[in-house]
């Protein structure tokens, strides 16, 4: 039995966890968007348990008949492979979205969520220098069907943005393991 901390990669047809080669048969309701952090417990290439991780780092088990995390000694942190890209994308997205008005948030919600999913879906898993993420996002903006004036604002925001603090870039995912005896083990290379 092994536990992995990783990210979701999702499109309309399929969803899977980055670096973990197992099928996840969980309702879409729980798996909202690419880039969502997940804690997976698997055995013999099948899913035993799935935990969603809240903004505060709290764990919410949505799959599995028991809390297998009590029997786990180490959580293999696959998210550390992609954490710099994840933090960079998050930083740029938050910066771009800050240019929206309150009404635009709700009016274009569907398009913007789809845009966000495309960015995480296309950029999070690839081997890519974080310095190139900005230009990659610019390309996605130009190809997107977001309204023209919003596209312009997003591009302006990106052009003006400098790179983020190194500590923030390396900040790991928040996860609250109080009550469990397991430790997190960082993994620097991809598992084949």
């Amino acid at each position: 039995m092994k536990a992995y901390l990783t990210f979701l990669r999702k499109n309309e047809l399929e969803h899977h966890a980055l670096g973990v080669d197992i099928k996840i048969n969980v309702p879409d309701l729980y798996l909202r968007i690419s880039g969502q952090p997940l804690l997976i417990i698997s055995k013999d290439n099948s899913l035993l348990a799935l935990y969603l991780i809240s903004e505060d780092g709290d764990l919410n088990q949505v799959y599995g008949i028991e809390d297998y995390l009590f029997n786990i000694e180490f959580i293999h942190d696959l998210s550390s492979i992609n954490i710099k890209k994840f933090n960079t994308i998050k930083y740029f997205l938050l910066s771009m979205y800050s240019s929206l008005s309150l009404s635009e948030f709700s009016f274009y919600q569907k398009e913007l969520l789809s845009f966000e999913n495309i960015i995480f879906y296309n950029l999070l898993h690839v081997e890519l220098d974080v310095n190139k993420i900005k230009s990659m996002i610019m390309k996605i903006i130009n190809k997107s069907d977001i309204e023209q004036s919003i596209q312009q604002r997003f591009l302006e925001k990106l052009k003006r943005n400098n790179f983020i603090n190194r500590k923030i870039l390396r900040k790991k995912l928040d996860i609250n393991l109080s009550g469990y005896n397991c430790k997190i083990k960082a993994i620097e290379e991809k598992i084949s």
Partner: protein
Amino acid sequence: MNVTQDIANKILSSCLDYSKLDILFSLKAFLLNKSNCPFFVHKNGENIDSLIVTLHSRDLNFYKAFNEKNLRKIKISPNSILCMPKNRCMVLLNLVDELINNLSADEILIFDNLRINPFLEDSLFNFLKQNDVSEEIYNLYLRRNSISKDLNKFFLIENKVHESCLDKALKIKLIDYWKNSYGLINFYNENLLIENLILK
């Protein structure tokens, strides 16, 4: 030695007597990610009205500067805590809570969460409900509490397990607007005066 162990050692070597309680409160504020959140310490039987009036006279920057200064007294960098993963924060938080309990069991630390974020639990209002406090103050916080609930309903802010960047950005924007009215001292001082006039 890792950062968490280093900070834990600094806490254990410098914060073992009652005079260092302030430093522990500041550490707790940072570990809970509430470094600019107004707070007060209530001792059993102490008048709450005067504590609230003091709370109203200080802005959010005061609390941030106060907490940062306290952390620097024991040579802890505020950034080292801000960038610390949640799991390690929890370890330090348990240590800080234990020390606070040992040093002062009859003092309660109350954060005015709602002043910095309308989506947090209104712990100050919950505390006021259970204690004797003047009607003006109670009504002021009752009104603020209901406004925050309306805000949640209007923008359909739900507690989703995973927030997309879009959800987060909307929350950040609303928090900024909120802090520009309910975070400022003007709101509390002006409203208390108006309420006094109406009552008289």
